[in-house]
């Protein structure tokens, strides 16, 4: 099998998986079976494309193969299927199949854990093993979670449809949260040897792009896509060739992806024209301020502190946002001011096991020359992070005291 065929199938997987599965699900009315048929179509593509060449429209080829297999299964198991709870579909409802799939996976009657797992598996096409690894669960545990969620969709009859316009805003919220969570999980993997899990970040960006394509007038979707692009633009500069972590102040800004930044900034401008700004729009604006700064020293910290203030209100005083604001104050007004701003957060239960609080405190103490206290704070941060790249970075900082 040539590398070219494998690459073509991988590309079709990235681009078309959601479409193939979403269309097949309308035939099977069973997510599990749709998943199997889709998987099978990709496996066949490896063999058939190697023999006959890559088809002109790979997505259409894959959909046809998956659908045919689905129709066979449905016919063969008709008697058995009559006793199963099947996906509730409305044959005449308009809209894109991918949107139907996304909104079904992110239905508010499912827990956030189930929404994320289903979206990663069914919409982004990650394997159960990959999803399990991303969320620190064993493969059987993740498989059980996915099965339970699919069973609830069928049994409680969560409909396979796109929400009506009047409920769109409410139903879009969990979708955006899930896409954002997939991205952040990949952006700094909670565990493992690599800082970035690009399968997750790429999947989340692809999903945000799809949503933007299908809902171009939604300011909330536009803002989320802007945030993901501007953040992802920095990813090449976040690790050294040897895999070590490079923080924003030390990043080689010439390695930032200027095309992505330009695309993200343009989207953000568009999203901000429509008021009031969403949480993701403000986060994108913060990322854009960093992206536009020629150097760390020349960053507009006053603007960043102000934006974190807006974000704090929008998130109902989220402790994590308060932490970021305190850190920004430290860069605007100096390490002592930063340390003072962090002080009230020490008692915050939501941050009790949050490594970044200890790491931020350690950094301010280090810059103030309070070495013993800084070392203790680094030790605290080290016990709280499971990412090996972050671990190595914090150890190096501690040793340099």
């Amino acid at each position: 099998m040539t590398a070219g065929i494998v690459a073509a199938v991988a590309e079709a997987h990235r681009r078309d998986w959601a479409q193939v599965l979403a269309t097949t699900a309308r035939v099977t009315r069973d997510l599990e079976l749709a998943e199997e048929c889709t998987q099978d179509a990709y496996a066949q593509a490896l063999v058939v494309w190697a023999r006959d060449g890559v088809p002109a429209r790979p997505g259409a080829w894959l959909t046809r193969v998956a659908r045919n297999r689905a129709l066979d299964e449905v016919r063969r198991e008709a008697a058995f299927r009559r006793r199963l709870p099947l996906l509730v579909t409305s044959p005449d409802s308009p809209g894109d199949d991918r949107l139907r799939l996304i909104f079904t996976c992110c239905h508010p009657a499912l827990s956030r854990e189930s929404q994320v797992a289903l979206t990663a598996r069914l919409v982004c096409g990650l394997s159960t093993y990959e999803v399990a690894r991303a969320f620190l669960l064993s493969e059987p545990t993740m498989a059980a979670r996915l099965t339970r969620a699919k069973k609830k969709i069928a049994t409680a009859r969560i409909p396979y449809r796109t929400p009506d316009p009047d409920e769109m805003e409410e139903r879009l919220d969990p979708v955006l949260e899930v896409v954002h969570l997939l991205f952040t999980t990949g952006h700094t993997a909670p565990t493992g040897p690599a800082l970035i899990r690009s399968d997750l970040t790429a999947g989340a960006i692809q999903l945000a792009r799809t949503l933007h394509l299908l809902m171009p007038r939604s300011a909330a979707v536009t803002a989320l896509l802007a945030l993901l692009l501007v953040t992802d633009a920095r990813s090449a500069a976040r690790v050294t060739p040897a895999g070590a972590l490079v923080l924003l102040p030390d990043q080689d800004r010439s390695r930032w992806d200027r095309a992505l930044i330009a695309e993200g900034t343009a989207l953000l401008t568009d999203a901000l024209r429509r008021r009031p700004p969403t949480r993701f729009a403000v986060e994108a604006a913060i990322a854009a301020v960093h992206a536009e700064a020629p150097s760390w020293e020349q960053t507009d910290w006053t603007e960043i502190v102000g934006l974190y203030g807006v974000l704090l209100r929008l998130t109902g005083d989220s402790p994590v946002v308060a932490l970021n604001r305190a850190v920004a104050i430290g860069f605007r007004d100096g390490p002592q001011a930063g340390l003072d701003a962090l002080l009230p957060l020490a008692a915050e239960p939501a941050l009790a096991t949050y490594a970044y609080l200890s790491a931020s405190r350690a950094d301010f103490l280090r810059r103030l020359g309070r070495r013993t206290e800084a070392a203790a704070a680094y030790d605290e941060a080290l016990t709280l992070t499971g990412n090996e790249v972050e671990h190595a970075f914090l150890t190096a900082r501690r040793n340099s005291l």
Partner: protein
Amino acid sequence: MAKYTLLIYGDAAQWEALSDEERRAKDAAHAEFRAAAGDRIIGGQELEPAPNATTLRGFVTSDGPFLETKEALGGFYSLEAADLDEVLGLAKLLPEVHDGHSAVEIRPVVDHP
């Protein structure tokens, strides 16, 4: 179509403390819900407070509900609907969804052929 049961849970003490006027407002809201649901309603009852319950377990008959909790089952509706979204849309009309101390749990019903 599928069947669902809507279980209305809440703090019984707060239900008992309702004034006549509050009680009438609640009844009116339920009437609105029933009008909106129409013939999709296939059953439903308001239950007397939990202290009036009698529980049988094995050979023991005891005074009170199975679960001795502050939040108790206060009533239920059985509905027939196309899907969960239709039920969610109707259930939002129930006053117990918005009272703070109470909530409505939606359970799909096993379809015995």
